[in-house]
């Protein structure tokens, strides 16, 4: 690896609002090298040998937690997982005390997911040694997902500057959408949002560099990529839209709507999907879909992040 002009060693990964375009670029270029490791027969390098990582998840997760764990293990780190249901969290231990406990055990990185916005930022006030990696805090941020979206776009399009990306669906509750806003805009991507008005934050339109559309078709038109966000099913019960049936009809992504985008449009979805609701199975598994690739790229991006914040990127 080349000696990097910038070092991210010791940097907390809280949200892409705290990343410079150069840092994002560094993560993406590092992730490209990391991806080759995933394809090797022996997927183990010594980059993080002797480093220890703990994942602390207060919310359920399949891909993000496994992805971080796998990333750490491929790099030779020791990875331990704590989940809310099987830890002292059920005894009412506070986040502060859980963090102090794992810090005392000597972990170098804490990968955390929490339903409260700002929990990762709060964590940086609590601990001294470990870097905090935000694996999702409420509807605030999911920086590694934002980065893997960028990585996937870059792999397919060859560049990021000037791309038009449509982000569709439940923007209100989506930490992924917010990470896209910070990350994609910094890389020169033009962002278009659409979804039911009840699922769009009221004052988002005040943010520069974002176009909000009333109709989903207008957002999709000539898009280079479409990110379909997951509808959280409990939202319908809260009266935010009338029915799943109506949502699929008016806001769901199917082949017909896909035709409005560019011919080589790329489909992204952070998962887990509600097939037949926000996305039709023909789109999810069709030629344009990069949804499975996103998962693999997620491991590569997380390998890059862990390497950069734990070692600064220099070869061990």
């Amino acid at each position, binding site marked *: 690896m080349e000696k990097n002009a910038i070092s991210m060693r010791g940097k907390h990964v809280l949200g892409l609002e705290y990343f410079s375009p150069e840092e994002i670029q560094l993560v993406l270029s590092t992730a490209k090298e990391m991806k080759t490791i995933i394809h090797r027969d022996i997927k183990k390098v010594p980059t993080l040998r002797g480093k220890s990582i703990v994942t602390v998840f207060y919310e359920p997760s399949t891909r993000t937690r496994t992805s971080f764990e796998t990333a750490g293990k491929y790099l030779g780190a020791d990875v331990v997982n704590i989940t809310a249901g099987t830890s002292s969290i059920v005894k009412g231990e506070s986040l502060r005390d859980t963090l102090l406990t794992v810090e005392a055990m000597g972990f170098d990185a804490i990968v955390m997911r929490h339903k409260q*916005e700002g929990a990762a930022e*709060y964590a940086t006030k609590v601990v001294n040694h470990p870097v905090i990696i935000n694996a999702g805090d409420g509807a605030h941020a999911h920086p590694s997902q934002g980065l893997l979206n960028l990585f996937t776009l870059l792999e397919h399009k060859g560049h990021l500057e000037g791309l038009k990306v449509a982000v569709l669906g439940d923007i209100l509750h989506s930490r992924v959408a917010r990470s896209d806003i910070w990350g994609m805009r910094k890389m020169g991507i033009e962002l278009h949002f659409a979804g039911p008005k009840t699922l769009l934050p009221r004052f988002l339109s005040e943010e520069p560099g974002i176009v909000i559309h009333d109709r989903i078709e207008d957002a999709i038109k000539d898009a280079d990529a479409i990110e379909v966000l997951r509808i959280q099913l409990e939202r319908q019960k809260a009266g935010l839209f009338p029915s799943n049936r109506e949502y699929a009809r008016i806001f769901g992504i199917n082949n017909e709507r896909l035709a409005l985008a560019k011919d080589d449009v790329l489909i992204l979805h952070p998962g887990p999907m509600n097939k037949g609701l926000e996305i039709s199975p023909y789109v999810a598994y069709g030629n344009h879909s990069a949804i499975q690739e996103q998962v693999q790229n997620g491991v590569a991006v997380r390998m890059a992040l862990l390497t950069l914040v734990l070692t600064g990127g220099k070869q061990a």
Partner: protein
Amino acid sequence: MKQIIKGGRVIDPANHFDEIADVLIEDGKIAKIAKSIKDKDADEIDAIGKIVTPGLIDMHVHFREPGQEAKEDFRTGGNAAAAGGFTTVASMPNTKPVVDNAALIRSLQERANQVSKVHIELIGALTKGQEGKELAEVGDMALSGAVAFSDDGHYVKSAKMLLNGLDYLRAFDKVIINHDEESSLVEEGMMNEGHRSAMLGVKGRPTVAEDIAVARDIMLAEYADARVHVAHISSANAVDIVRQAKKRGVKVTAEVTPHHLTMTDECVDLRDSDTKVNPPLRSQKDVDAMCAGLKDGTIDMIATDHSPHAEEEKDQEYGLAPSGFPGLETAVGVLITDLVKTGKIEMPLLIEKMTAAPARIFNLKGGSLSVGAPADVTVIDPDLEWTVDESEFYTIGTHSPFAGRELVGRAVLTMVDGKIVMRDGKVID
């Protein structure tokens, strides 16, 4: 025992008095105010270069008794009030249990008198348990000394319940103080709904929740020809609704907090719950409207909404921490620094909003330096520079959004019934 507060600028808005003068205090009462008073037997208190005002009044504090003494109690709260220059405060009834009956009012008043350095008035709950379902025994509480009634902390959801309260309390000449945020619009909200909340992904509490609540209360007060007081007003539109109502002659009054006069939602940092408060810190447009409302009389008075919590409660994830922070010990400094020194409002108006106005609205004994009135007096050094240091707070509460701020202006002496209870920031036992 006689004391003379010498050479200060005496601002007594209730008597339209603003001159350099001496104040003679005898037997715990104001005895005389004149250009120069000489009395060999009197202790002299030098107030040259300082401002002498009626003891400051804060009609909105949470002293947490009974049941939540880990957050604050009458002794610590009373000390915080004295330290901040307040001689009379009114404590809200959202305690455990809720203060919703005369027996509690009487026993709490007795305890407050025993342990507090300042006068503590008690506000009774409007409804039993503050549940909004049945009227509490407000008449009984009024006769036992409750100063006003409020379900503060909760919105009175039922219009009929509020109307009953307004009608019923007319016979007792007591005011209902309302926390105006329409509940269904603020559920789970933890900061102002605006651009900042949209970008943080945090659920918002929109200004319209306050606007429609204030509008409803005003319509009901007008209908019942009764008095209603809007607690901690914070929305520009709500201020305008109050302004229009006052023009029609509706008996509505309103208070604003130091933080809603000076801070916006841009101050929200999710690392620390010190900016979490209900109603939330709003936009600059709203802050400007608070100041304008204060100046033109739409907003009658200032109250701190002093809401201390235990350290372990505030030191949590933003969304889990309770709303509110202490305000008594920072109010004078914040208001002088951000409003008076910046030229936004004049000192006499500020003093009026913290003395004569609350006394008039709630029919309190204090609030003036009239001869014969209880000698509740505050001396303010308007030029004293100091830095807010929570470790010096008398309140149990921490996580003040003003912590670390460099302020100009501070109360340097607090006198209650002629007795000095605070001098140079130190509460005197």
